[in-house]
């Protein structure tokens, strides 16, 4: 049986983490190819439902990343997002969803190396946890 390759979906903001991931590439830093990056205007735009949809579509892990506090392109989008994540993460845990599979981070446009590190450590952590069978099972019930 081939080794399990985790599928990670990354929701990133356009202004910091997406540019940071770009820098990782132009700096020729090698990192895990398991991640699929989805670009958003701002972390404030990342609806919690999108994270659930990623799990339903077969993601084993999720990265959500944007500008550091005080660096938001829209001044306060990441502050609002942070509050939402704090509550959402607690609720997921209360409902029995494994929050170790969701990694939140701040990665600026200058932190190409940090992005590679965030991706690599998340991939390794999720690889250890294995495929997210619990969620896949209920996703199948919905015919996804």
């Amino acid at each position, binding site marked *: 049986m081939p080794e399990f390759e985790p599928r990670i979906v990354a929701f990133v903001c356009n202004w910091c983490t997406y540019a940071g991931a770009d820098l990782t590439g132009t700096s020729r830093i090698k990192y895990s190819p398991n991640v699929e990056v989805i670009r958003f205007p701002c972390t404030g735009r990342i609806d*919690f439902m999108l994270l659930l949809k990623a799990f339903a579509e077969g993601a084993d892990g999720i990265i959500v990343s944007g500008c550091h506090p005080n660096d938001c392109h829209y001044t306060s989008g990441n*502050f609002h997002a942070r509050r939402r994540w704090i*509550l959402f993460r607690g609720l997921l845990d209360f*409902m*029995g969803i494994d929050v170790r599979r969701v990694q939140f981070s701040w990665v600026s446009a200058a932190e190409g190396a940090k992005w590679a590190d965030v991706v690599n450590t998340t991939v390794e952590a999720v690889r250890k946890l294995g495929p997210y069978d619990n969620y896949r099972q209920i996703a199948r019930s919905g015919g996804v």
Partner: protein
Amino acid sequence: MEELRKRAGNLLESGQVRVVIGYGEGTGKRVRAVFIQDAGQADCLIFDERCRQNLALYLTRHEVKKLGKPAIVASLPALRAILQLAGECQIAENDIVVLGIGEDGSMLDLPDFAAIEKHVASTVREPDPAEKAQFDLVLAMSLEERWKYWQEQLSRCFKCYACRQACPMCYCSRCTVECNQPQWIPVPSHDLGNLEWHVMRAMHLAGRCVDCGDCSRACPLDIPLYLLNRFLIMDIESRFNQRAGTTAALDYALSTFHPDDKDDFIR
């Protein structure tokens, strides 16, 4: 009760309000919401321990709004809902008359939102012991046990949305569950859609839920929905020191932020 009827009758007779939203006798010893438009009918108003429904729900319904300026019979949960609705700009101070009822069943004099704020701040209602025990039980479970518990509970849900209809804070004229392009929440009742619906309901009420418990009481399948709301209420109180329905100003957990909000999981 006599005083309530008298005040309601006077309000209608003098034309200060066009409708009184209150409780009346229903069928088989149950109470129901009544909408009294005629002073002569004020005698059918009642208030006793059966009157638990949060009538603030009707303040935002357009069928009730078109009747004209309302007076509303409101005990603590409804008073908190009124403040929260005011904070969200759904009702204005001069557009309603509040017939407040205290914890001992006596009439309160609540001429404005400031008086309601004061009453709410000074009144504590202890949570139901059985509900608290259930909450602690779930909290003490392991991750896998919690997953199984909620899958089992939510598997009963058949998406009647009674929880939404009973909620005074669910006043959106178009709810996300009715959006079908894209379809956020699948229509049929299955494990995935049920989970998504209840996560979404809890999150959309985060910081706004006044903990009246009407969603759980409305649920025909006895799903303990109050657990989700209460978890968020406690989380918000401990992290952000905020509680819904305490102020008529727009200030609830997700309407605002603090630059120093503490988290322990963001890298």
